[in-house]
């Protein structure tokens, strides 16, 4: 009973992996309905946090594109000359964290006339009452720094000469940032909860699987299979469940996004926005698949280890 060399043993190990790999695939395929149901449950469980994640990434993207949301409106004192207004605009524009556009009282009046429909009435205001206005768009290097940049800019602007007032809806911005933060936290919490759900679902499925195949385990044990060999097909099964569940989640999300895309575009169109709904990117998709597979493997490991121990303890392994 000499043990063979390490290389031979490694090859034998590799072949055992291969046989178990195909054997687990065969088992899953021969129980198609059961497998499908488990995969659907896993898919939905994984799709929920994933869906929220996609929603948040899209919201972030909206925030970035909709830079007018963070626009600071600077009203200059009436009587400020065009040259002064343009000089100030240039100075603001020179800052790295902001773009600035000057709007003359005439241009402002035109806009207002178009937007308000008060055309004839406005004509009666013979001296144009509007001041010079500078629209300042903050350019944060990161979206989540928007509020900081806005605060910084506001402070700086208020210290400039010839400025009457600086108007910015920071409250609104703070609320948005807060909402995004809460959303992110929610994704983390949901992902953790549903990871546990995936683990439990897979563990339970594998537990039933092991119980159903107690006879097979017994036979394997009797003809000389070690724990490792007995465990392998179940571990692979768990891995497949997790991987297929993750794949299902990604597909489900894609379908949902396709379903939402049309109405959402319509809605945003009404607000005068063009917006491309983005799904889960390639690398995040791979991460989701890998996470799914690992969770499945983990669940299977827990179930098999527990159950094999129980089988051995109760002397059910290797009855003859």
């Amino acid at each position, binding site marked *: *009973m000499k043990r063979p060399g390490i290389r031979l043993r490694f*090859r*034998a*190990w*590799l*072949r*055992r992996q291969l*046989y178990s790999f195909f054997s687990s695939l065969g*088992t899953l395929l*021969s129980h198609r309905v059961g497998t499908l149901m488990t995969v659907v449950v896993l898919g939905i469980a994984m799709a929920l946090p994933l869906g929220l994640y996609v929603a948040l990434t899209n919201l972030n993207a909206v925030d970035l594109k909709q830079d007018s949301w963070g626009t600071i409106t600077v009203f200059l004192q009436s009587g400020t000359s065009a040259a002064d207004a343009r000089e100030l605009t240039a100075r603001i524009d020179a800052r790295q964290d902001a773009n600035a556009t000057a709007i003359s009282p005439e241009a402002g009046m035109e806009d207002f006339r178009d937007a308000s429909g008060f055309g004839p009435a406005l004509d009666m205001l013979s001296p144009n009452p509007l001041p010079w206005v500078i629209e300042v768009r903050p350019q944060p290097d990161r979206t989540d720094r928007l509020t900081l940049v806005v605060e910084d800019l506001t402070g700086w602007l208020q210290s400039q000469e010839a400025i009457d007032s600086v108007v910015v809806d920071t409250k609104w911005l703070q609320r948005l940032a807060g909402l995004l933060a809460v959303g992110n936290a929610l994704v983390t919490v949901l992902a953790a909860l549903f990871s546990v759900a995936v683990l439990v679902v897979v563990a339970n499925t594998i537990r039933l699987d092991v119980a159903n195949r107690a*006879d*097979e385990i*017994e*036979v*394997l*044990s*009797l*003809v*000389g*299979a*070690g724990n490792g*060999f007995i465990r392998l097909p179940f571990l692979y099964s768990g891995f497949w469940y997790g991987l297929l569940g993750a794949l299902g989640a990604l597909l489900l999300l894609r379908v949902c996004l396709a379903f939402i895309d049309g109405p959402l575009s319509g809605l945003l169109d009404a607000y005068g926005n063009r917006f491309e709904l983005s799904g889960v990117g390639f690398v995040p998709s791979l991460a989701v698949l890998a996470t799914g597979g690992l969770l499945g493997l983990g669940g299977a490991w827990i179930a098999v280890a527990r159950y094999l121990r129980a089988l051995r303890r109760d002397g059910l392994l*290797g009855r*003859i």
Partner: protein
Amino acid sequence: MIRFEHVSKRYPGGINALTDINFELVQGEMAFLTGHSGAGKSTLLRLILMLEQATRGQVLVEGRNLSRLSMRTAPRIRQRIGMIFQDHKLLRDKTVFDNVALPLMIAGLRYADIRKRVRAALDKVGLLQRERAWPLALSGGEQQRVGIARAIVGMPPVLLADEPTGNLDPELSASLFQLFRELNSLGVTVLIASHDLALIRRMGQRVLVLSGGSLIDDIPALEGGGAA
């Protein structure tokens, strides 16, 4: 090859399954183990397979003292023993071929070698043409032969059988025992637990008789091995 030295086995609850068993099977020997049900035949086989541990005494297989080995080595001991079960212990959701291939897959052999050896084993028991069949589609005798093919496919030096002819008609039983004899003539050590006394007598092999957990008789083989 197999040696029992003062082996006793006491199950929890105080039942003495075996008491002070002593015998030795040398390499290439063939013997029957007989006795009424409950005499301890299965317990004796279980001890050899490391499914149980002796309460007292020592069981040696190929010179290794099983009571000194950890349970982790049990798989490696079992890989050296071909075991044939009364209820065949076949996997119903695997084909005949896959069932027979199990020990070789466990050993991690190359698939090409597995194919060759499984087919040779199936040929030996006359079931080569049924390799793609499912166990449940086979008759009892055929299932038993699949079990035998699985036991011999790894060419183990020891072959154990627990009531291999349990539910078979006399003719099939005789041909099975004949097969065991052929394997034995190839150098395999064979130990068969059976209560089919008429058949055992006709085989003319060594017979170990168990009664109430004790070895009460050890009848040596007839000269020339007896008539088939």
